[in-house]
């Protein structure tokens, strides 16, 4: 029987990044950008905010396809957001 450590190691993981599409107003990003400039840093030209999710996956052979489906249906709003997924085994 696999111990808890091995079970954790054997899990597949998907990391989902959600980004606002180009041209979509990002008031949060702009506010953070202003704060950085107010702190005196001039190295940062602009900031865009986003979100990320970590999904632990089961053994299902098509879990990758399903994660993409879940992104399209739920995690991202296709009107304003793009997503990409990193898979780790």
């Amino acid at each position, binding site marked *: 029987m696999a111990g808890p450590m091995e079970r954790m190691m054997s899990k597949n993981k998907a990391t989902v990044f959600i980004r606002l599409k180009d041209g979509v*107003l990002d*008031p949060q990003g702009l506010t953070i950008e202003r704060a950085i400039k107010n702190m005196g840093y001039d190295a940062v030209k602009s900031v865009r905010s986003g979100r990320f999710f970590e999904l632990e996956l089961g053994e299902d052979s098509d879990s990758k396809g399903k994660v993409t489906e879940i992104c399209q249906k*739920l995690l991202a709003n296709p*009107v304003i957001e793009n997503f990409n997924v990193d898979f780790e085994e």
Partner: protein
Amino acid sequence: MKFGVVTFPGSNCDYDAFAAARLIGEEVEFLWHQETDLKGCDVVILPGGFAHGDYLRSGAIARFSPIMKSVAGFAKNGGLLFGICNGFQVLLESGLLPGALIRNRDLRFRGRDVYIRVERNDTPFTNGYKIGDVLKIPIAHKDGNYYNFRGDVERLKKKNLVVFRYCNREGEITDQSNPNGSADNIAGIISDSGNVLGMMPHPERAMEKILGSDDGYKMFESVRDFINRSVIIEKA
């Protein structure tokens, strides 16, 4: 006729909508989000609030509540569907109306009276108004900034699907009277098919002068008159 008000976990304007329907003397029933039966309602209201905590994005989870399948089918068959505030967000997330509502441009939750101008009075929801009427109606939201691609906003305008726009007391469309940064001061839109309306302001909170405004009263009356007229036409 009968109004139906959907309650999601986190809805908090469902009782206001319920009371508004009662105030105009009509029957009204709550529809719990786990149900699938619309109980013969002639119009379904998706009320304001924070359905499912507004987690992920406003309206994103509510879209998958069991009742939404019935609601979408109801709308597809021409049933009147009325999304207010969070209900409007649910309609957009469900794809029943086009576009998205993003964070207000100043990042603040805005809860106050605003003025909106009636752009169309040939809809089931606004037939009691005149075009150009200025209504004082409260807003209460943080994600009310209507966004769509420039071309899609133009399409909405060309097809005349914008029903309400933010304006000043005089009815002028100005940037200053835009409380959230919405494209083209859009406060409410209607579907191509003319039976699905979504709006950010709360007409159900503007039903009695003693509460500051009764400018929302005619919206509920419009719905009733539309339904009653269709019943007469069906019977004739």
